[in-house]
């Protein structure tokens, strides 16, 4: 890639970051507290199953 192309990519990156900083920009739907809770419960269940597995 040439210097000009790299510069163009940097400018495009800057432009996209500017867009993300704009209050109007909608980020992808967030991972909500509920999702973290589901992940945590699944992890605890897996851990419990692994512990049970040790006694089989």
């Amino acid at each position: 890639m040439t210097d000009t192309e790299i510069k163009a990519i940097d400018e495009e990156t800057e432009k996209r970051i500017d867009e993300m900083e704009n209050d109007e920009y909608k980020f992808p739907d967030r991972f909500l507290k509920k999702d973290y809770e589901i992940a945590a419960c699944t992890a605890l269940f897996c851990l419990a199953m692994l512990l049970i597995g040790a006694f089989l």
Partner: protein
Amino acid sequence: MNNVNDQTEREAFFGTLPIMRKDRIYGFLDALLVLSGYCIATWSYTQGSYLATLVGFRQLLIGAFFGALLMLIIYQLPVILSVRYGIDIWIWLRTVFGGKGTVLVTVVIIIINYPWYAVCADLFASSMGNLCGLFGLELPEAAHTVLAILCVVLGTLIAYRGLGAITWTTRVLVPLLLILGAVVTVIGFVSVPFDVIWEFQPERPEGEPNIIPYIMSVEANFAFVITLVGGMAEVPRLCKTERSGYWAGVLGQGLAGSFFVVVGAVMAIATQYVTGEMTDDPTLMLAMFSVPALALSSLMLVAFANIGTQAVGSYIYGVMLKSSFRRADYRIMIVILGIYVTLLCIWGKIVEYFGSFLTVSACIYAPLAALLFTDFFIVRRQKFSLRSAFMLNGHTAYRFTGGFNIVGLICLAAGAAISLLIYDPVSTEIHCMPLFYLTPTGASFIGTAVLYFALSRIPAINRYLMKDRGELSV
């Protein structure tokens, strides 16, 4: 104008540009299929038969699914950052290792991870050789290498054609593979008495405690799934929601990948019962138990799964390399990766020395995953400077010491040392039984996370790490 747009689009999907919400192409299902396609390869059977040498079938079932899911649920959480900003984790990792440090770690990860694909190609060649054997066609020895290279070439070509080809390949291949897995499991269970598999216990030296092989099997599952850490974000960053990106990664590997590990174990146990010898080659097992037409179609499918894996792997690691070597073209990167695998195939001893590659790589992945997790959630609390991460002019928060974040690199080395101090994978000697209960990968993950967090609380180190606080904007 079109050229500029094409270039921009290429830089987004095959390079480093952040992918904006409107450009995202994957929902949960497509991402799940692509990542499942990546995880389902003949190496799953190898892992399954290895686990069957350690533990009984029920413990194997628990370890393969719950061990894999537990590790994935934790270490893949930083993927949500990649979905949020549409960037690869290797952009974020500049906060942990610095710009040049990230280049160093990227190259190390590629060198130690990419031999997986040579194994994949080797297994493809073996499967095709066995297939020919079933039809009475004996191939010359050199054909093995040629077939292995063919796998690399076809996988690289699919990756070369871009995301459309990858997506369609996995859309077709993965559902067929899942059906095949179910069929193979049924064949395995009906070919031998049910109890032979369900009650299976491997032969062990008398007096050996049961807990050690069980922990080793859990460790094998942890180590198996954590190998994806380097390439875990390239596909999720193309997802439309954080939830779909995260769960596609967790379930693609934790359910689809693990399912095929279990299928491999079923086959290994069934073949041992019939022949007295365990095999991890699906072609031999299917040929033994299945009707010819089903066997042939199944074998072709299993063999071609390796090409799908090669294709997704080329894309993932091509993009990963692009993060570090921005001047290079994505297509040149995947050709270089293809050449590296081809050379390993020509060398021909990758399977023989694969244990050494795994030993080294397993020591690196856990601390890498731990640093990412701790930095993202605890140290930086999900906030960082995008401009410094992209190393834009005038933004130097992640330049650290000559481009290297000494703290991150020390923690990476310490994490690898923790793993080796607990268990020597070469001599299989356990050095520290209390910590071995956590498994070497688990202990290394926890130890690295604690060390990095503790160091980040020291004021001088905190100032060194957190130079970005003045330029947080998103």
